[in-house]
């Protein structure tokens, strides 16, 4: 029974490790292997390729998501254009724009960006791992939302601009009856006169940024919900009272371009009743709705900003430094494995195997989650490797103690684990508590560095507990029934000496020992 479950677990560990190893294997191994290890240069002869990553049925390999410090990314330079608004405080407006950029970066899940003010009127934004088109589209937009209504001429008719630039008009009732005309009509910002008699445009500035979300309407189609702030609600109810009689279309423009729906048409629903504090935009594709929601939640730039430069940059730590460090890390892991084998002998070999399993598993988790790995994440990983090794060391030290007092191998394994478990649990749980709090703080204060560190360390610790408890124990159990117990030197000379000499069981009161069963002594 016991042997069968051990064999099943062993199989599970082997399958899991193989899978993780395939996932983790870099698409360009040559880059990370130390120079003295020969690796074939990437070369394809016909359909057979060597020197690349391992190919599984031609599935596209996903790359590890690395931060700006390790891989580089896209650099955008944005320039403020205040020609239209000469009385704006440029300094303050740029500071606000930096906040907006950082909110957008967080909203789009791009970790570890660098935003700097450059010179008098520019911002430099570095974003890891996204294409330049994406960067311009998501970060570089002004994101000014406008509520638009039909442009009416002095005679109350709707204005149309022909291709040659001339304008014509059509009666409002004709336009309202014809969807095509609604599409082609001219729109102007919805304006209202507030209590002080000032004419105001209703824009994204009046949105309640905490109340913008995407869900599905009764028909199951995506819709963007938006809430207005107090002032915006007053203005909107005034405007919709006017526009709902007769029901006229209201369009939404983002940065002076009409927002179009999944069908490619301008979204311009009729205002059927007076609305005030919240509304919905229907007809968007799900992707567009989500992008729009993120942009609106992050707010608009207070002044128009133009993308003046887009370029690819490499890692802030320097590409060579990154490659050197990965190579050094590989060497370090091999050295640690060698140390474990020399010091703990047979259990050390198992620990080295467990470490291999641990590293493959953790990197696979990072890659699949995916977690953005930065230098902070690498530090957390190094620490978690140390903790994973520590768990094994704790188990082996306890196991050796039990072997020295004359326990059987099975008894020593089980007692060793039981004794080591409380220390592994308490030390790792306290590390996890630290991670949770660091993550929360990092989130509150926008310190993505602290957040990234906490996340990688927490994942590393969780995998290390799994690895110590399941993997090492399974490996040890797999030894039971083999002939190793006849070669006690495999567990260290001190164990062999203690067992060879007088029975040592009397060293400690038997009553104080744990209640695990004694296995058969070979």
């Amino acid at each position: 029974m016991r042997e069968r479950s051990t064999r099943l677990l062993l199989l599970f560990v082997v399958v899991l490790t193989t899978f993780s190893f395939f996932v983790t294997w870099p698409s360009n191994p040559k880059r990370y292997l130390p120079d003295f290890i020969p690796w074939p240069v990437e070369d394809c002869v016909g359909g057979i390729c060597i020197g690349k990553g391992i190919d599984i049925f031609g599935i596209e390999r996903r790359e590890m998501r690395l931060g700006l410090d390790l891989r580089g990314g896209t650099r955008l330079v944005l320039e403020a254009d205040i020609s239209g608004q000469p009385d704006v405080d440029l300094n303050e407006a740029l500071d606000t724009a930096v906040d907006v950029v950082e909110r957008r970066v967080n909203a789009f899940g791009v970790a570890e960006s660098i935003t700097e003010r450059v010179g008098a009127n520019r911002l430099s934004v570095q974003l890891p791992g996204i294409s330049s088109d994406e960067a311009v589209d998501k970060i570089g937009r002004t994101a000014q939302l406008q509520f638009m209504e039909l442009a009416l001429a002095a005679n109350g008719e709707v204005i149309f601009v022909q291709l040659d630039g001339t304008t014509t008009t059509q009666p409002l009732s004709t336009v309202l009856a014809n969807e095509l005309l609604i599409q082609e009509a001219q729109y102007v910002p919805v304006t209202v006169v507030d209590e002080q008699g000032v004419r105001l445009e209703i824009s994204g500035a009046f949105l309640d940024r905490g109340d913008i979300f995407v869900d599905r309407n009764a028909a199951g189609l995506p819709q963007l919900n938006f809430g207005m702030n107090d002032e915006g609600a007053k203005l909107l109810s005034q405007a919709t009272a006017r526009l709902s009689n007769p029901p006229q279309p209201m369009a939404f423009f983002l940065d002076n371009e009409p927002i179009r729906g999944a069908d490619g048409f301008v979204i311009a629903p009729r205002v059927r009743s007076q609305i005030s504090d919240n509304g919905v935009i229907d007809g968007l594709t799900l992707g567009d709705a989500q992008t729009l929601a993120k942009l609106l939640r992050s707010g608009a730039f207070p002044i128009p900003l133009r993308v003046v430069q887009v370029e690819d940059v490499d890692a802030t730590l320097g590409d060579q430094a990154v490659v050197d460090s990965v190579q050094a890390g590989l060497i370090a892991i091999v050295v640690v494995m060698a140390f474990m084998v020399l010091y703990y002998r047979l259990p050390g070999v198992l620990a080295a195997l467990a470490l291999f399993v641990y590293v493959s598993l953790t990197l696979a988790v990072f890659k699949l989650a995916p977690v953005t790995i930065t230098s902070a994440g690498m530090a957390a990983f190094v620490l978690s490797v140390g903790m994973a090794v520590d768990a094994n060391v704790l188990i082996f030290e306890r196991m050796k103690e039990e072997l020295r007092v004359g326990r059987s191998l099975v008894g020593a394994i089980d007692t060793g684990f039981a004794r080591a478990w409380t220390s592994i649990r308490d030390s790792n749980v306290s590390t996890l508590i630290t991670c949770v709090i660091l993550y929360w703080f990092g989130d509150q204060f926008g310190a993505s560095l602290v957040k990234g560190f906490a996340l990688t360390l927490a994942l590393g610790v969780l995998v290390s507990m799994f690895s110590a408890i399941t993997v090492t124990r399974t490996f040890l159990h797999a030894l039971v029934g083999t002939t190793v117990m006849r070669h006690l030197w495999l567990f260290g000379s001190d164990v062999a000496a203690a067992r060879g000499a007088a029975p040592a069981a009397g060293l400690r009161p038997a009553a104080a020992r744990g209640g695990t069963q004694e296995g058969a002594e070979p």
Partner: protein
Amino acid sequence: MIDFVGKRLWFYIFSMLIILPGLVSLLLPDGLRQGIEFSSGTTFTLRFAEPVGEDALRSALAELGHAGARIQKTAEGRLLVRTDLIEGASEAPPFGPALPSEREELETALQERFGPLLDSDGNVANRFLEFSSVSPSVSSDIGRNAALAVVAASVAILIYITLTFASVPKPIRYGASAIFALAHDILVVLGAASILGRLFDFEIDTLFITATLTIVGFSVHDSIVVFDRVRENVRRAEAAGLDVRLADAVNASLNQTLGRSLNTSITVVLTLVALILLGGETIRDFLIIMLIGLVSGTYSSIFVASQILVSWDEGDLPKLLRGEPAEEAA
């Protein structure tokens, strides 16, 4: 069995000797030198006729007094450089020819080393391509926020340890001692950073904050492993009906966990040394800080956390105040 507990006064003195110079250095003006990430600086793009490596340019800039520059390759062999503040134009002197500005001096010095600078079309221009001042790229609040997070984490750990050590008398002392050792390690690291800053221009950057957080994780982890053994020994003695002094239980636990403590530290030290010797230059300072913290963390779990626990139990502090040496009392 090594008598760790009896020599605890010496361990305290040793820790004081390590921490005091660092603490003094910290409290003096300019205790910690802030890196360029936290301050305004200058960014420029340049392009040499011959390709120049990032490391070569970085060390050349350091020699010219602009240490810690961030250098990134961009398209067409251009290099994007972020340094501390460099004056673009010198103030016009009251008489005589205009002195070269800091920027011009730097352009000249770099061309002496690496050959001519090109403009964006590839012609020799002898000038940087773009040159402007930049705001801090990291808010200096990050240090304060990280410190607050560590304080909050310490409180949570104190609560957790108190709960999980509830089976032994006075569990809160275990948590408090672990947090005390944590404070010890943070002081060692901050002090070391301060002294390194005075001696070798070591600067605090976001990597340093990461290293400190790593040490927080390690320190508590290491202390708890020793305390777990103390808990086991105390409970075992109680179960056997023996009245064991906590000092003896702690000493036995320290001896039993010594092998594990050293082996775990050795594995992490091996990793760090490999990274320091072979890894990239840009993370070397960070790794050295990690190494210092790690050694301190191992030391403090044996020679500080456990000893504080014993001192508390033995009432060393009241005895000391009454004028009796703690050593003889132990």
